[in-house]
């Protein structure tokens, strides 16, 4: 990681949508009077969601004004948490886990695909579809290697399945969220070996094994 700065190209203004403003007012109301600053992270998060997954300077200032905080205090928060993007990201923002378990299971190959397909980290492709970032552990180690694309996890990747995933996303085809090797969540690849009587007859876990429900379209995050 290196020092993070605000993007050079900045929009002229930022305004919360009425729905987001109402949502934010509810968050602020959770805290006692004079303690509105506690809502800074939800406020920044909502601003980022509203603004194509990155935080412009005006959004930081807007949040500061809403919460009665000095600008520098909000900037401190926005630069501290790496989940706040300070620069534009692609429509599909790929966060590749490179921490030890994923690295041992082949995240280097995933990163190589990113470099070949997308280019350098923190650079958006010319068509605006992709950008990627290597991040620290995302907490899905049993499905390593994995990436997070916008709000969804894609797990048990190989270079081939990941390349296909990117193709599908680029082409707007539906994708399968979760493990890409036929595994059901973090269950064993060959089906359950214990507690089988509690779950579905197909040897996979019950309630969510409906394939129709599992195959959700990828969110662009809008």
């Amino acid at each position: 990681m290196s020092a993070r700065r605000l993007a050079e190209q900045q929009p002229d203004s930022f305004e919360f949508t009425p729905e987001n403003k109402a949502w934010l007012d509810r968050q602020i109301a959770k805290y006692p009077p004079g303690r509105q600053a506690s809502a800074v992270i939800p406020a920044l998060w909502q601003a980022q969601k509203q603004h194509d997954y990155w935080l412009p300077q005006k959004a930081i200032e807007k949040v500061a004004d809403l919460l009665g905080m000095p600008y520098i205090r909000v900037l401190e928060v926005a630069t501290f948490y790496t989940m706040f993007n300070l620069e534009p990201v692609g429509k599909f923002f790929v966060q590749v886990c490179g921490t030890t378990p994923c690295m041992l299971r082949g995240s280097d190959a995933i990163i190589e695909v990113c470099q070949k397909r997308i280019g350098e980290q923190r650079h958006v492709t010319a068509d605006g579809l992709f950008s990627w970032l290597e991040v620290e552990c995302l907490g899905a180690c049993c499905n390593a290697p994995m990436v997070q694309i916008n709000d969804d996890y894609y797990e048990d990747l190989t270079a081939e399945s990941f390349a296909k995933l990117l193709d599908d996303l680029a082409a707007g085809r539906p994708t399968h969220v979760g493990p890409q090797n036929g595994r059901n969540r973090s269950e064993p690849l060959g089906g359950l070996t214990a507690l089988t009587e509690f779950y579905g007859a197909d040897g996979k876990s019950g309630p969510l094994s409906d394939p129709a429900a599992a195959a959700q379209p990828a969110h662009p995050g809008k």
Partner: protein
Amino acid sequence: MAKIIVDGIEVDVPAEYTLLQAAETAGKEIPRFCFHERLSVAGNCRMCLVEVKGGPPKPTASCAMSVKDLRPGPNGEPPEMFTNSPMVKKAREGVMEFLLINHPLDCPICDQGGECDLQDQALAFGRDRSRYTENKNAVENKYIGPLVKTEMTRCIQCTRCVRFTAEICGTSDMGNIGRGEDSEITTYLQSAMRSELQGNVTDLCPVGALLPRPQNFRARPWEYTKTPGVDVSDALGANIRIDTRGREVIRILPRINDAVNEEWISDKARQSVDGLKLQRLDRPYLRENGRLRPASWSEAFGAIAAKVQATSPDKTGFIGGDLSSVEDLFAAKALADKLGVKNIDARQDGAKLDPKNGRASYLFNASVEGIDAADALLIIGSNPRWESPVLNARIRRRWRAGDFHIAVIGEPHDLTYPYEHLGAGPDALAKVARGEGFGEVLAKAERPLILVGAGALAREDGAAIAALAAKLAVKGDWNGYSVLHTAASRVGALDIGFVPGEGGLTAAAMAKAGALDLLFLVGADEINVEPGAFVVYVGTHGDRGAHRADVILPGAAYTEKSGLYVNTEGRVQLTDRAGFPPGDAREDWAVFRALSAVLGKTLPFDSLAQLRALLNKAVPHMAQIDEIEKADAGALTKLPAGALSGAAFVSPITDFYLTNPIARASKVMAECSALAKGALKQAAE
């Protein structure tokens, strides 16, 4: 109180004391970077690690753990701490090694060298060599204002500057962005700091990351001759140390005085030093055919003597300046008395304050320390942030302590703390005096502080406003009637009676066209003297007074003379001479003494000591240096009431950075002023 054993020495300290304070009580010094007595505890530098028995079995940050957090021994023995055990030594060496990993080895070209905490503590507590062979981290320099130069690679992220701007200044200019090894100290998008106290971050910075920009590469700390002095840029009388190298004043630093300025000074006090050598009057001048020409002292005195002989005392006047020492004004007044002149006045702004109403009528009676004890504050016609930033920081600290109601009558400025704005003019004050609104808060308060500024006093109804304000302020032993002056010389001038005698004219009347034929300006630059009178200016800078003058006699600035200044609370303070006035300039009292001999009215002193002896006889409390002679609050009840006008209060200070001739001559102050006005685009890089 709690007992604790520090390196075998048992001490009894308040339970809320930190281990660091307890160690200091026992006479043990603990190294520290982030900890500062006047800031909140951060605990992030880890330099103050100590070993404790009765606490966690690992080195403990002594600045952040209090004595009451430690458990006693199994048999009830007091907890023990060690500041020199092998564990502590190893911990300090380790912390120091980590701090030095990313600290550049540029001490030879660093201005902090010689007064650097990191350098000193690395010598005292560090290892003798580095084991680190990787590349060091480098950090981009930041623009944070015209007064502070940054060298951010040297920063050790102690966050003292961040806490100072957030807590003391109240402007929250600085912050720590990024995380981990990418942490950077900066202002918001590299804008200039907005506080009038920002220069203090250079004193707080324990390394060479934040340095005073105007003093960049000027001198090494050990080259300075250090002279204790008193600041004259406002009426607080902040204690300063004047550092000179050769004849030149290079920098001014605060001296610690908890009763006055603690350890802060305003930017004007600190950085108008370059004004001391610019625009200086270094020889007498005479106006001939409308142009000033250099002259000798005897020529100048001859011209004045001719004019004095031709003028009747009724048509002669003396106006005292804002930066003059008590001795200067005393000598000028002695000369005026000898000449039989009644037209003398030091109140250039026309403040309706008169020594005949008693000393309590013009002092900051609550005293600066009394701000900490006050429980309600009413500010009338003053902008303390500009009239005395350090005093304002004290008000802010009192506000931060909680349970402190503040209201303002006058212009609603950003004072760095919230307040209730009651109105713009005397109507609002009359309402409070009737006990309505904020008047109820004051009535309930035991120690109300009524801060009256020049904006309320320097106007036609000033005396009536003072009388009204005084009624609100006195409760039992507490006298909260507090005048915040804008001129360093004002209280001293009023103490020695530098006001019009029987039938004499005030400063404003003297400046009117046709009022006088001969006018002496004793460093008076804040008044516009209309055409007509023959003006003799005794002062230091080619400012307004000198431009108007017919004869200029060069005087000594406050760093160039030993003199007494009485601050707004009535504290008599002595400043020492740090250097000599330039060229032919002389100390003002000596100028008047020499002039008196030429006029055949020789004054009865030949030295400063003799002058002081006379002064002490006339005004005994001038001998009590650093003391406040308490004023009798009873006099306040006799203040004459009068009619109030409807006009709003306006603070006389419109530009904080340019209030006196020294500051107006200073390039640094001009830059600050332009920046404050927004004329200068905030440089991004």
